[in-house]
Each structure stands twice: as structure tokens, then as C-alpha cells.
């Protein structure tokens, strides 16, 4: 595997839209070609080379390409967007849309990410060692096709609207989240190891949410069913199962109505 290193040398004045920072785009390119790839700063089209020192050449394919991004990236959006293979390692914090519409490969952020991390994700592994912002693994604005596959793991906290319109895949938040988790969810798994203030599983049709900590206010559309002994991401113990959202439509399979499932650690 070949490694390309991007080191931020000039901080953009506005926010930089750097959706070309992806193994798929870099594949087969030399450092100079990568520096010439376009980016947008506001309405101006510029190049990655204006902001980043580029060293190393990419591999022949995305799969053979690793990208390391260094420096303060809190004004850089869309890192790893639509990546399908290879690896991206971000050594600090990023702005919005990190790993958006990701299809495969591995993306590791050592710092925090802002809103819309991993939205519309279909595959691959996205790990945030710090905190994630709002709309983690959610759907794009207006869309009903949220996260469909892959794994997102956040070691810190997440903001509001995690897994909004989620259809598949797994989101694990090891800390707390803000309100609205799994709203309009129709599939997939969300595991929150900390606390959630309220609005868990609102208008949820299908899918599974595990909450290890407290839910200050439970949605009125959730009904307690029974206790179950489960193994969830390395922890084994009893959970209380709730069905919901009872105010939403639910499909029928094999004569049984399928509900969204909310498990809370006892």
C-alpha cells in the first residue's frame, strides 16, 4: 500500500470543500497531480496544492492507497467523501461531511468531526476517536435514504439527530448523544453507551436501538414488552425491550407486525 501525506500549510479563509481527498480520486496519481486536483473555497475553484503540502504517490487503485491528512482541518469539509476502498487517516479534527456517502474502506479521525459525518453511508468503517457533531450517519436533508450499511464508531459523544432515517448498518457512540436518535429509522442498529436526553426512536418503523445509559424522557409511542439477556458490543447483561413507535406504520412479516426495537440496559 502506498501512502500520500497531505499537510495543511495554508489555512483557508473560508471553508474548503475538499471532496477530492479520497483514495478513489487519488488512485494512480503522483504527488504533483494530487496537488493539482480541484477544491472549492467559497465560490472560487482552487487546488488542493494551494492549502496542502502533498508528499508521496498514490497506489494504482484505491485499495492500494492510504491518505494521511495532517494539520488543523476544522475548516475542511468532505474528507473521504464517497470513498469505496483504501484508508484515510486524519490526525486532527475535521469540519462537516467527513466520510459522507462512504462506500467502503477505512476512515479514522483522531480528533472530532462536525455535522453530517458519514451521512448516507453504504459501507466501510468510519472511526472517530473524539466527538461527532449533529446528524451522524443520517440522511441528507430531505432524503429518506439514510445510512444503509457499514460501521460508524464514535469514541466520544455525538450531537443530535444520530441515525436520522437510518436503513441499515451500525452506529456505535461510546459516550452520550443529544436529542433525536433513530428518528424515522427503518433498519440497522444504533448503540449508545451513554445517556440521551429524549426523543429516542420517534417515528421509528423498524431497526434496533440499544441504550446503556439514561433516557430522561421516553417517547410516548414506546411500550415495554419484556426483559432480555443480551450481548451488545462486548457487554453481556439484561436489557428491557420496548416496541415502537406505535404511532407509526409497521410492516407485517409471517403474520407478525414488525416494530422498531428499543433496548435499555437495566
Amino acid at each position, binding site marked *: 500500500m502506498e501512502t500520500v501525506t497531505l499537510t495543511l500549510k495554508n489555512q483557508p479563509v473560508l471553508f474548503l470543500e475538499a471532496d477530492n481527498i479520497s483514495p478513489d480520486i487519488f488512485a494512480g496519481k503522483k504527488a504533483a497531480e494530487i496537488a493539482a486536483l480541484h477544491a472549492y473555497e467559497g465560490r472560487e*475553484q482552487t487546488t488542493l496544492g494551494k492549502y496542502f503540502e502533498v508528499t508521496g504517490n498514490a497506489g494504482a487503485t484505491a485499495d492500494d492507497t492510504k491518505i494521511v491528512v495532517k494539520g488543523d482541518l476544522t475548516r475542511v469539509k468532505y474528507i473521504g467523501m464517497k470513498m469505496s476502498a483504501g484508508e484515510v487517516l486524519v490526525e486532527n479534527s475535521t469540519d462537516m461531511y467527513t466520510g459522507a456517502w462512504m462506500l467502503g474502506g477505512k476512515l479514522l479521525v483522531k480528533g472530532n468531526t462536525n455535522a453530517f459525518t458519514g451521512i448516507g453511508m453504504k459501507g466501510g468503517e468510519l472511526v472517530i476517536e473524539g466527538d461527532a457533531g449533529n446528524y451522524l450517519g443520517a*440522511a*441528507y*436533508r*430531505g*432524503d*429518506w435514504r439514510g445510512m444503509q450499511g457499514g460501521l460508524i464508531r464514535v469514541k466520544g459523544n455525538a450531537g443530535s439527530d444520530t441515525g436520522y432515517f437510518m436503513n441499515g448498518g451500525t452506529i456505535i457512540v461510546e459516550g452520550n448523544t443529544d436529542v433525536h436518535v433513530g428518528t424515522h429509522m427503518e433498519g440497522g442498529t444504533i448503540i449508545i453507551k451513554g445517556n440521551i436526553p429524549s426523543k429516542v426512536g420517534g417515528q421509528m418503523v423498524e431497526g434496533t436501538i440499544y441504550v446503556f445509559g439514561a433516557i430522561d424522557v421516553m417517547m410516548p409511542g414506546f411500550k415495554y414488552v419484556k426483559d432480555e439477556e443480551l450481548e451488545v458490543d462486548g457487554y453481556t447483561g439484561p436489557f428491557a425491550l420496548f416496541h415502537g413507535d406505535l404511532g407509526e*406504520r409497521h410492516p407485517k412479516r409471517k403474520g407478525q407486525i414488525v416494530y422498531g426495537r428499543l433496548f435499555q440496559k437495566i
Partner: protein
Amino acid sequence: MSEYVIKNGFVFDPVQGIKGDKADVAVKDGKIVKNVSSGAKVIDASGKTVMAGAVEIHAHIAGPKVNEGRNYRPEDKLFTYKPKTKGSRMAGGFSIPTTFKTGYEYARMGYTVAMEAAMPPLYARHVHEEIRDTPIIDEGAYPVFGNNWFVMEYLKNGEIENTAAYIAWLLKASKGYAVKVVNPGGTEAWSWGLNCLTVNDPVPYFDITPAEIMTGLMEANEYLGLPHSMHVHQNSLGNPGNYTVTLDSLKLAEKIKPNNKFGRETVMHSTHIQFHSYGGENWGNFESKSKEVMDYVNKQKNITVDTGCVTLDETTTMTADGPFEHHLTELNHLKWANIDVELETGSGVVPYIYSPDIKVCEIQWAIGLEIALFTKDHMRTFITTDHPNAGPFTRYPRIFTWLMSAEARKQRIESFKHSAKMIDATHIAGMDKELSLYELAQMTRAGPAKSLGLSNIYGGLAPGMDADIAVYNFNPEKEHKPDEIEKAFSAAAYVMKAGMPVVIDGEIVSNGNKRTIWVDAKTSENPQVMRDIRDKFLKYYSVTMNNYDVASHFLTNPRVIEVDAAR
């Protein structure tokens, strides 16, 4: 004094009966002329196809429901934006493009006129603001009358003259072009939680039937002698087995005779008839009834239809047929917007995905094309997608390809998931008809222009007509693969609008000089109707009469079609 001559192209012009002869088209000061001086600018069209600018008879491209689609579907715009160029502004969106993209994309395909198919009169100003912001193409808008309280009350009493006076007043107030009818009576019934699913279902409270509304509006339309005929979206749209309702509605035209000074020979335009040509009792045994419907259309000479071809895309449905949109959201569970427009109409918006992996969508695709292929009079059947309901208008080149190439249809059918079941439920697999360029010019130019009563201005290349001209990289003497046809009609080699070049080599070079077409029908004074209008504004409307009128400054470049209907 600007003069042009488009030289040596293969010209297809149904207005003059030119069927692909090599000819020159001369232009002077925005009009087509017989001859120009030797100093005229020469456009070389050798080896290319030359037609008049195309005329769109039915599309939802401006106004509040289009904008509601834009508002609540940001995902439709995702990754679609093109930055500005020298000649064009930034434009984006797929099924509900921005006004700029709407103008540019029509122009790039060689369309120079487009009609907004459903204008709620109360929101006419919004429609005209969007029309003003849509570059290049000339546009008009059809106000909706089929669920209007005035119309239903007058027609209940058989008062054709009062209905006509009200239509004339509303066309002027809303700067509208024609009498549009959407699910006659059904949208008003929806306000009562009901619908009108046959032509004989009475509207609650008003106690009038869709058949009476359609017949009365056709009579009033001919009483006034408007340029276009009554334009109807029939009852029971999109339901299996609805073709009998369609035939019942079409038969209402048998009793009506055209009366106008615009050369129009028809009294009813039945729109997006694909959605109205369904057999079967449910989605399981759903089948095509295009043959039954088109057999009738072919023999009944005073009606025109447009296809409403399904393009197999993700799109945004929007119609003044409020109950239908509710029905649709119950089927696909996608987001739904609905509005009731006071005394006039209603509407709904729901996204929809026509998937080539779903049998019903495959059959719908076939029915749209069958309508066009079964037609025997190409001057009375027009190609549309009911944009954006059956698909975006930007797919016209693909529809043309399917109609012009049996091979293209075969390829499409073979890649369907349920092709065998689709073939059983339709006629398409057995049809070898391939549309000629002359027939295409009839169905997209001369035909719609004639139905609109604009055949002396648009849709042809005869001297005196507007110099709206499209030149395509399509040599009719050569064989074309399906994707070559689509490419040629997607980006015209050259397009001229009113004598001004607007597209060169598929790129926009000018924002043109667009006009808004509306109909000013002058009637004798009718104190009773004026009193009724004032009365309804006082009693029911949320606005006053003074705030209702579309003031003339909304139309920066109007083209008024005058009708003298005083008696």
C-alpha cells in the same frame, strides 16, 4: 436589421408539408421570410436536421407546487449544480430544476415554447414570477377551473354565458392562457374527504357531476372562441381499470363543435393519457388499455391527447389532483405535501421512483410509448412526460429514441426485471412502428401549436412565423444507434429563438428575449358575474379583489392573444 440563412439542412416542417428536403430557411428581424439579402449571416446545416422550435403543451414548470417540490426535496438538487458559464447562470435540480435550468434545458433540446399546465389563480403571481425568471422560452400558464366554485354554481344552473364571462375575467386577472380542468369535481370533493372517480360521481354540496363540469367548460370555451380547447386531466387518474372512465370523458366531446378564429379544429385536449389507459382490477392484474383508448382517439377527430410517457426515473409527482397525491403517499410512504386553494383548487406533491425492477412501472412505461405508436394522426397526439409526474422533461430525447427505434425498445424490454410479465400485459413487444422525423415534428411542433391555436406563430417554418428554429446533429440519410439519437436531440447544434441565436453546439449562448403569452378575451359587460365575484371576495376569499389581479408589471415581455367574444 439582423438577417440569417440556415443553409442546406434536411428540413422537416409539417406546416408546409416539407419532409426532409434540403432547403434553406431565411430569417429577418425575428421572423421567417422568403428571402434575405446577400449580407445575411450563414449557418451551415448541411448533414443536419432542421425543424421549428418545439412546443411543450403540458409541463409543471412554474408556480407554488413546483416550488414546494423544490423546497421539500433538497435531495433532488444534490450533486446536480452546474456553475455559471459565459452565457448562462448557475443552474441545478433534476426532476424539479431551477427556473434557469428549466429554460436552458428546454432550449438545448430545441424547445422554444412551454406551457405551465396548472396555475392556481390565487397564486398566479408566483407562477408569473417564476415564468419571468425562466430564460429563453416563451411561456403561458393554464389557470385551473374544474373545481372552481363559480364554475360549479353557474354550470349547475346551465349558465354557459356566465361561465364564459367568469373565465374571461379570470384569464385576464391571472394572465392565463387556457381553461385547465384537473380531476373535475374530485379535488373539491377531496375537501370533504371524498373523490369523484367516475364522470357521474356528484360533487358534495355543489351536486354537479364531472361530466357536467367538462361539458359546460367545453361549451363556454367555444362560446368565447379561445385559442386552445378545454384541457383536461381526467378523473380516476392512475387507477387500474380507469380506461372506461377515460372513454366516458372523451365521448363528451362528441356533442361539441369547435368555434374559434385560430385554426383549431378540436374541443378537448386530454392530457397525460398514459395515466388514464389502465386495465385490470388491481396492481396484480394491471394491464395496458392503450389500444382501446387510442382506437377511440383516432376516430374522434375533435380531440387531441398527449402521452405522459414514463421515463423510469426518480421524480417528483405534483398535481392539482389532491386526492390522487394522498393515494400515492399511502402507497409509497414518501413525504407528502397538500394544499387547499380556497374556492379554486387544491394540490399535492409526492416523490416517486419509477423503477425498471417493478412490474407496474414497466407496464406504465410501455403504455406511454404505445399511445404514441398507436396514433394514426400525429397532429393530434403529442409527446410529453407530464413533467415531472411521469419523469423530467429533460428525458424527451430518450423518449424520442424509444419511439424512433424498435431496437432501443427491445434493449430496454430485455433489461427489465419482469419483462415476460410486462410483455403479457402490454402491446409494446409486438410493435415494430418507428416514428419518422416528420411525425416527430408533427407531435412536438406543428401539432401542439395547432391545438393551442398558435399555428400561425409557432411550430412551423413558413414565412411570417416566429424564427424559432432548431438544428440537430442528425443526418436522416444515415443509420443511427439508439444512443446516437438520444445524443443528437439532447443538445441541439444550433437553436434560434425569435431570430436570436440562443444555443450553439449544445451550449447556451444567450438568455434570449422570453415572452409570456396570455389570452385577453373581451366579452360584453356582465353585471351579474361581476357582482358574484365581488360578493365571493367579500364573503370567502382571504384576499381582497384589489390584491388578486396579476398586475401588468409581473409580465415584463407580454404577448397578448386577443379574442373578441362580445355579443
